[in-house]
């Protein structure tokens, strides 16, 4: 059974419907990458999974449980984390406090996870007492990523984790994604750098106009000439 299973999802903002039948499923331990043109509804899909907008049709199952329309406050306790595309840190809280907030629902000792996060993102350790709002874009992305790891999620949703980062930072982030995935975390990621992202993906989803237009393994999508022509820029 799939860890995440989305069937025929219709959702939108208020009365405006954006998603018109998205299907997406991920097995435990996979990396799934969602690509597509701007405004295709990629972010909207992640937000819908995370209970941030009203779902009119379709269903979302996680680990066999129906989580359709469940509020976003509840999802952390299902061990799902979400890193939004923007405004993804608490700017006046220090880096350390941001990570602590990530572990808000944990009442056990999470210092081990905290150390682990600092290990994956060494720059954060240096800046741990600085307000997150004063960091560079890349460092902020790390804070957001680290914050999401604090609950030791089963599934992590990343919305364009490399947006606005230099190529070097970008490949670093992809390396981290692979490393985290290897510890058993399932990853669903939206990416603009489609080629690099699909290269590390087990599954790829091409979204256009609020629907999947292609669903396949990452490698097959890369090799598919239609996809290459219309979505990967030749």
């Amino acid at each position, binding site marked *: 059974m799939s860890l995440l299973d989305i069937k025929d999802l219709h959702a939108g903002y208020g009365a405006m419907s954006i998603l018109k039948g998205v299907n997406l499923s991920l097995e435990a331990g996979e990396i799934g990458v969602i690509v597509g043109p701007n405004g295709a509804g990629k972010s909207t899909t992640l937000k819908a999974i*995370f209970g*941030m907008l009203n779902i009119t049709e379709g269903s979302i199952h996680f680990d066999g449980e129906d989580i359709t329309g469940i*509020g*976003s*406050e*509840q*999802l*952390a*306790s299902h061990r799902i*984390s*979400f890193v*939004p595309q923007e*405004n*993804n*840190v*608490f*700017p*006046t*809280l220090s880096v350390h*406090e941001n990570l*602590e*907030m*990530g572990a*808000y*629902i944990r009442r056990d000792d999470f210092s081990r996870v905290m150390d682990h996060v600092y290990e994956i993102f060494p720059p954060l350790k240096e800046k741990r007492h600085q307000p997150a709002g004063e960091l560079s874009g890349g460092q902020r992305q790390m804070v957001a990523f680290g*914050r999401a790891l604090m*609950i030791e999620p089963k599934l992590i949703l990343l919305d364009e984790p490399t947006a606005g980062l230099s190529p070097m930072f970008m490949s670093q982030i992809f390396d981290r994604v692979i490393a985290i995935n290897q510890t058993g975390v399932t990853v669903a990621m939206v990416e603009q750098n489609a080629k690099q992202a699909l290269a590390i993906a087990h599954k790829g989803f091409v979204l256009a106009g609020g629907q999947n237009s292609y669903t396949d393994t990452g490698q097959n999508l890369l090799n598919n000439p239609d996809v290459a022509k219309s979505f990967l820029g030749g």
Partner: protein
Amino acid sequence: MNDLVFFLNKGITSGLIIGSIYALGAIGLTLIFGILRFAHFAHGDLMTLGAFVTLILAAALAALGVTLPLPLAFVVMFPAMAITAVLAIGLDKMFYKPLRQAGARPVVLVMASVGVTLMLQGVIRLFAGVRSRDMFVEAPKEIYRIPIPGATRKLVVTEPQILLMLFTIVAVIALHFFLTRARLGKAMRAVSDNPDLARITGINTEHVVWATWIIGGSLACAAGTMLSMDVTLKPDLSFNILLPIFAATIVGGIGQPYGAIAGGFLVGFCETLAVFNWSIVLRPFKDELWFDLPSNMSLVPTEYKLMVPFLILIIVLIYRPTGIFKGRVL
């Protein structure tokens, strides 16, 4: 020297006292503004309500013949703070939460708080009338006259003033530790920073809202009680007290508790020094001045005291809407 003591009595002490009261009120207002994202117009009447709760408790104890080394009103202020906090949460449940859940615009919440303030005013005045009341139900307040070397005039401080200063210091330190050390305190700052992200992170917004009302309500009760102990309990202050507290909040920067404290003292001092009669302090230098010293030389006549916070507010809104501590521009 006498004139200096006069200045200390009328300028500095009053400024400190009224400043602490404004600060206590403004902390709650700024937290509510930052976390619930609306200007809480009922805060002034929440202060009055808190003072009344204190008065009722104190009168009850006095009727039972209880006497304590401290003024009764001060002692019962602590249970009164708890009661006011519960009332504040109740008001939120009844009037603000349903609107929040229906996704109302912030301005609708502001209007609801105006409705709530009228209801509080109505209830308070219905049961208590509009006349002023003395908070010292058991004995008149103690006044300390401290002799100052080289002056015939004495430094005058009353017991409630000393208690107020102590309370403010303790409250501010406690708040600081709460916001920087406690899990819930940090969560409050997180919600104030980015409510959507806080929800995503799994922070229980409901708890944060409660904490906000508990802090806001109890400090409002303390501020109202202290204000009434310093002078008398006036049930009809409402907007006259609300305006300086809003000014303090905005000067300090919305969502910034430390800013609110600074803003409170700033507004308090500006107000007292503006209505302070400077001619008394200048009297020793009468002969050196190039003008005749009038008998009353204050910057603002006392009846226009309310102008001071308003002008501060206007100037801040024009030149620095984020306030001195760089609050959020909502």
